[in-house]
């Protein structure tokens, strides 16, 4: 069990968004949290990665309790979060953005090898290595965000809405990449708005509504239940 979430509650100021969530991710597993916008998916990921401090509940990562840890401590432990909207360093080049991904000391030593590997995986980044991140197109930014996430020595990769704002062709590519990443052995926690492309990488699926999990189960079963998905995701 690489990630254990128990009774997680979190919110913004007086507003509670998550009302007690339980979730686990095992090594090499692909877990997807599905839910319409505004129901807490991003909040969940932010509470896990430490950007947001939980108001109640416990979080355990590789056996250590990380509930009160800072975001940078959690990232250093190998829990990498690729947030919604990419969160790139706009005034830095593609190359520098990727290097920052290896900031953690352990990864920094091998940053040159890691970056070569990422360039192999995502050749469009290699050809744009000297461009400022703010000058990239939407799809390229997404690729950069994912590539940056790979630069770390991650044990668990959390991705928030990988397909948001992308053209359909790019969406395919993005999910293919994520699937490839998962197949290489990395555990993945994905937050997504629709279930269209996740069948290849999801082992288990959770349905999130208004800050609570209303359903969970093996991906095959849930994804096959079209009626449920239609009623729920619309």
């Amino acid at each position, binding site marked *: 069990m690489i990630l254990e979430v128990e009774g997680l509650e979190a919110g913004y100021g007086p507003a509670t968004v998550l009302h007690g969530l339980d979730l686990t991710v095992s090594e090499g597993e692909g877990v997807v949290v599905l839910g319409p916008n505004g129901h807490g998916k991003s909040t969940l990921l932010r509470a896990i990665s430490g*950007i947001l401090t939980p108001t109640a509940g416990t979080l355990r990562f590789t056996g250590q309790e990380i509930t009160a840890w800072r975001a940078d401590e959690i990232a250093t432990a190998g829990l990498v979060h690729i947030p919604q909207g990419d969160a790139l*360093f706009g005034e*830095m080049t593609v190359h520098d953005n990727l*290097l920052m991904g290896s900031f953690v000391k352990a990864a920094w030593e091998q940053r040159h090898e890691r970056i070569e590997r990422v360039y192999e995986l995502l050749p469009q980044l290699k050809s744009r290595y000297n461009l400022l991140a703010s000058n990239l197109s939407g799809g390229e930014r997404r690729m950069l965000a994912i590539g940056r996430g790979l630069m770390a020595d991650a044990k668990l990769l959390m991705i928030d809405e990988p397909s948001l704002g992308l053209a359909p062709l790019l969406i395919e590519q993005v999910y293919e990449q994520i699937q490839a990443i998962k197949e290489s052995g990395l555990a993945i926690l994905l937050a997504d708005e629709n279930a269209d492309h996740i069948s290849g990488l999801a082992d288990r699926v959770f349905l999130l509504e208004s800050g609570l999990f209303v359903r969970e189960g093996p991906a095959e079963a849930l994804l096959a239940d079209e009626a449920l998905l239609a009623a729920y995701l619309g």
Partner: protein
Amino acid sequence: MSELLQASWGGVLAGSVYGLMAIGLTLIWGAVRLLNLAHGALYVAGAYAAWTVINIGLPLAVGIPVAVLAAGILGYGMHVTVIRPMLGRPGWDSASIIATVGVAIALQAATLLVFGPRVKQIPAVIPGSTVVSSVRISYQGLVIVLVAVVSLVALFLYLRSSRQGMAIRAISQHMDAAALMGVPVHRTYALVMIISAGLAGLAGVLLSSVLFLSPTSGFTPMIIALLVTIFGGLGSVKGTIVAAYLIGILESSVQVYLGGAWALPVLFLFIIFMLIVRPSGLFGVPEAQRL
């Protein structure tokens, strides 16, 4: 022709000093969005530390690192007692200005109490001067330009390619993303503060060796440094360096061709014009500063 050369040399000298003075301000703004109005007090503190070292008989070469160290420590102290408690609180914009002004006055008063109001002089590392094609160049001026250029280049490279330097750039651009990469944000703020203060101390010693030193002598240089920073673009290291030299040359030219009394007014008018026409400065990112 010799006037032009004199103005150019004066410009290079002034620009080097302004660059050192302003770079700390821009760094701190970039990282923490803090307009550090205590920066002037940090110059003076560094200069007095060096003066104390000289006063007990040690050479200026020892005084300079001491100045940097003393200012750096003060900067760290300021960070811990004043800046850090206020981080993330609403009302940061106004509170940070007030707090740094308060620190500035307190430091100034403390300096006055400890060292007295009389003007002090920091001797040059190498006294004397030489004349090159009818331009008077002082050796101390050369030393200053050398130290400043080396420091600025070193800083630039540090920010560009070192792990910590890149982290500093990262937190200036996107704090949350930096944290997600494992950058300890608050510790990095402290680092920026120490570097910024140390540079202020260095600028203070160098400046005091060509001008005089008194508890209040930090105010006007700080205003000029602020103007340089704004002109170059708040938060842009490259912009600040370029702006420093441009303003240095402008001031020097005005001094040579129009006379010293005009220097400040022209400078201020120029900056007012700049702020109206292009507030983001030369290289600044126009982050929504127009209504």
